[in-house]
């Protein structure tokens, strides 16, 4: 057997980029099932559309950039971006919203920076923020979970709505506020959180449905930790950062904010902690840096949620911290063996 490598080491471990991406997708399956359960099967349509468009865009861009197709189409990164964006989008997002987001993610956020490994910002979050700023109405139109349980939305009517913008089933309304949105608006109207929680959009500890989706995302995250696809530093730092600041404000002014638990299991918290902020390409890479990065995402998420203009802040928080990564990495270098103590 001729030696395949020019120089040592001649042994190689079994870890591969594609393997990591596949495990990440596997970890999302329970949460996707939960989304289908609470918001209907439309997410599956959005996801399929997103994956197809992402792979097409990736192939075209690779061709334009004279890069080999096979290794990069099979690395799984485009699929991961597509699936993450699909999960973050509202269930009944019109097809053009998904397509715009994916094209922007793959073309601008990924390939214009040099493709896999070179993008400073998380592509899915760049796309999400672009859509949120450009199409605020479509991006905040969430199906009310309560109504859905009475009038389940079947796949064909979801299909109709996504591609034609018409609703065939008997659902009265498709515009419902998300729990985070509701909390924010009601607090703005000087309502007390405990009272706000009486509304049908809320469940046991957080938003109805949302709390379970977040829990299943956390379960997927634990699987990733167990498989060593991600390390504990970023998720733990982010969750601690978020709980600490929300606990402090909640203790000082309970009438102004939801409980720490509410923040932990609402909106994009768990998706952000385990699947977005841990994106290796755009996150900090040193051990100390990961902790700073994660804590920063947690703090910013809360600040944007409570004092910012948008109901959820995970996407913005991740992008802002992405910007700081080179700085964080530079100042958190580990001490090398034998370094003279200062």
């Amino acid at each position: 057997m001729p030696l395949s490598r020019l120089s040592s080491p001649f042994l190689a471990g079994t870890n591969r980029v594609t393997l990591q991406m596949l495990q990440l997708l596997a970890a999302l399956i329970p949460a996707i099932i939960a989304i289908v359960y609470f918001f209907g099967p439309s997410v599956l349509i959005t996801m399929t559309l997103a994956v197809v468009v992402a792979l097409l865009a990736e192939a075209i861009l690779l061709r334009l950039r004279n890069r080999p197709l096979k290794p990069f189409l099979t690395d799984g990164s485009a699929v991961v971006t597509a699936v993450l964006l699909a999960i973050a989008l509202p269930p009944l997002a019109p097809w053009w919203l998904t397509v715009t987001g994916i094209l922007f993610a793959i073309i601008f956020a990924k390939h214009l920076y040099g493709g896999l490994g070179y993008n400073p910002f998380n592509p899915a979050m760049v796309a999400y923020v672009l859509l949120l700023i450009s199409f605020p109405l479509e991006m905040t139109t969430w199906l009310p979970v309560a109504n859905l349980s009475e009038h389940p939305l079947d796949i064909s009517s979801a299909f109709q709505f996504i591609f034609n913008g018409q609703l065939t089933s008997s659902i009265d309304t498709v515009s419902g506020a998300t729990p985070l949105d509701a909390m924010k608006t009601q607090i703005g109207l000087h309502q007390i959180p405990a009272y706000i929680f009486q509304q049908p959009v809320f469940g046991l500890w957080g938003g109805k449905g949302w709390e379970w989706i977040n829990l299943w995302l956390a379960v997927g995250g634990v699987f990733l930790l167990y498989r060593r696809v991600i390390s504990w530093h970023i998720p733990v730092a982010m969750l601690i950062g978020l709980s600490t600041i929300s606990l402090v404000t909640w203790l000082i002014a309970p009438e102004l904010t939801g409980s720490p638990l509410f923040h932990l299991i609402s909106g994009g918290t768990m998706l952000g902690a385990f699947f977005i902020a841990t994106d290796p390409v755009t996150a900090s890479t040193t051990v100390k840096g990961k902790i700073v990065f994660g804590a920063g995402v947690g703090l910013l998420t809360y600040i944007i949620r409570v004092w910012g203009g948008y109901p959820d802040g995970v996407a913005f928080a991740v992008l802002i911290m992405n910007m700081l990564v080179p700085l964080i990495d530079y100042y958190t270098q580990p001490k090398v063996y034998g370094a003279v103590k200062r």
Partner: protein
Amino acid sequence: MTQKLGSFPGGLKLNGQKKRSTQVAIRKMPLSKKLILPLQQHIGEASIPIVSVGDKVLKGQKIAKAEGHVSVALHAPSSGTIIAIDEQPIPHPSGLSALCISIETDGEDQWIKRQPIKDFTEHTEHEIRQLIRDAGIVGLGGAGFPSFIKLNPGVHHHVETLIINGVECEPYITCDDMIMRERAEGILDGIEIMCYALHVKNCVIAIEDNKPEAISALELALGARPHLKETNVVVIPTRYPTGSEKQLIQVVTGKQVPTGGLPIDIGIVSHNVGTTYAIARSIKHGEPLISRIVTVTGREVEHAGNFETLFGTPMHELLEFCGTKRQPEEPFILGGPMMGYNLSGDHLPVTKTANCIIVGVDDGAKASTPLPCIRCGECATACPVSLLPQQLYWHSRAKDLDKAKEYNLFDCIECGCCSYVCPSEIPLVHYFRFAKTEIMNQQQEHAKADIARIRHENRLARLELEQQEKELRQQQRKAALAATQAAKVKQAAELPTEPQTTDSQETQ
């Protein structure tokens, strides 16, 4: 004795693959017809031949002497005739050639008169070191640093602990394991000599816990030497690269060797078990270093094992002796699969640092186009020196060598852990070796440029000095001329009839 062990960050748990070559005792490799002995089998200056073509030599006869301080002697591994002193291919990753002495053996294997030393304490430490140097002993763990230097504590240092390195953390290699199993007495003899030379009592024999036979062999031998009460076998967890000197020191003592420093700066000296045994042979039996144990193993080796091999034996003979499916000129690995290098020449000789030959690794790295770095940080997690390999990779790839140096490129021990764990299959160590070589070349260029610049400046200064001296002479001459002219004028005034021809002769 239980001792609290330290540890180092990162590292790998590797499949040892050692069983294959430890099933049979150490065997003797048959004498080869021709032995090729490179003059440089150690770190430092190459040895200088003291024989000529046509000379008859005996086994153990010195054929090359040490040159300069960092150098050792070289000996004939068997009796025979010197047939050539010329350039021959040597085992080197770049396939270089170097000056070698070739011996045609006569099959008699006749020893030169040996001078065993019964009681080494009758000699001074300095004499012991000289004997070890004359015996051509270098570190047999793979580096090949002259051992006598590491047996000299010098006047400024006090050695607290001697560490005997029997870790052998690289997969496949078992020569140290086998020498510990079979020659524990010799190793202890070596330790006694080393402790004497270093003025040290405390000695630690460090062995990984995957070598129970070696551990019990040494403990048994130690039990019979109550006077070595401060020598202990320390069993350490199996983890790559514990056998690396700095990492081993960290595990055994918890201390770190300062960057740019030597282990002796923190009171530690470490030697490999094979070296320790060789030192015992040289002092107690008067035998110079003429052979070593070589592990021959790998998926394609039929009779894997350890072979006592004379230096200069062509590697292909060793491989044929073990039976391999290897085709002529097919590459094989010299050293371990993590830090060794691949060779393909058939007539490369076994040298002092050749510890292992592997033909066919299981679960070897496949040829593949690396994906881009996804910054996952696995390399940093695996790095035993706490470097940031991915940053080093960016800077090495961009040839931003100053940045690479800033990220402590030269602290990299090239253990290969980062390349091993990389999910994008980037040959990181390859980039680091490249960057190191580039920087060293640059430094050499700088040094050359500095010399040239200094010479140029000296020349300018010299020219200027000459110019000044010239001007000074001219001035003096002019002054003298003016004086003489003044005198002449004076004279002329006194004697107006004198013709004025002397003027044109004097001015240039």
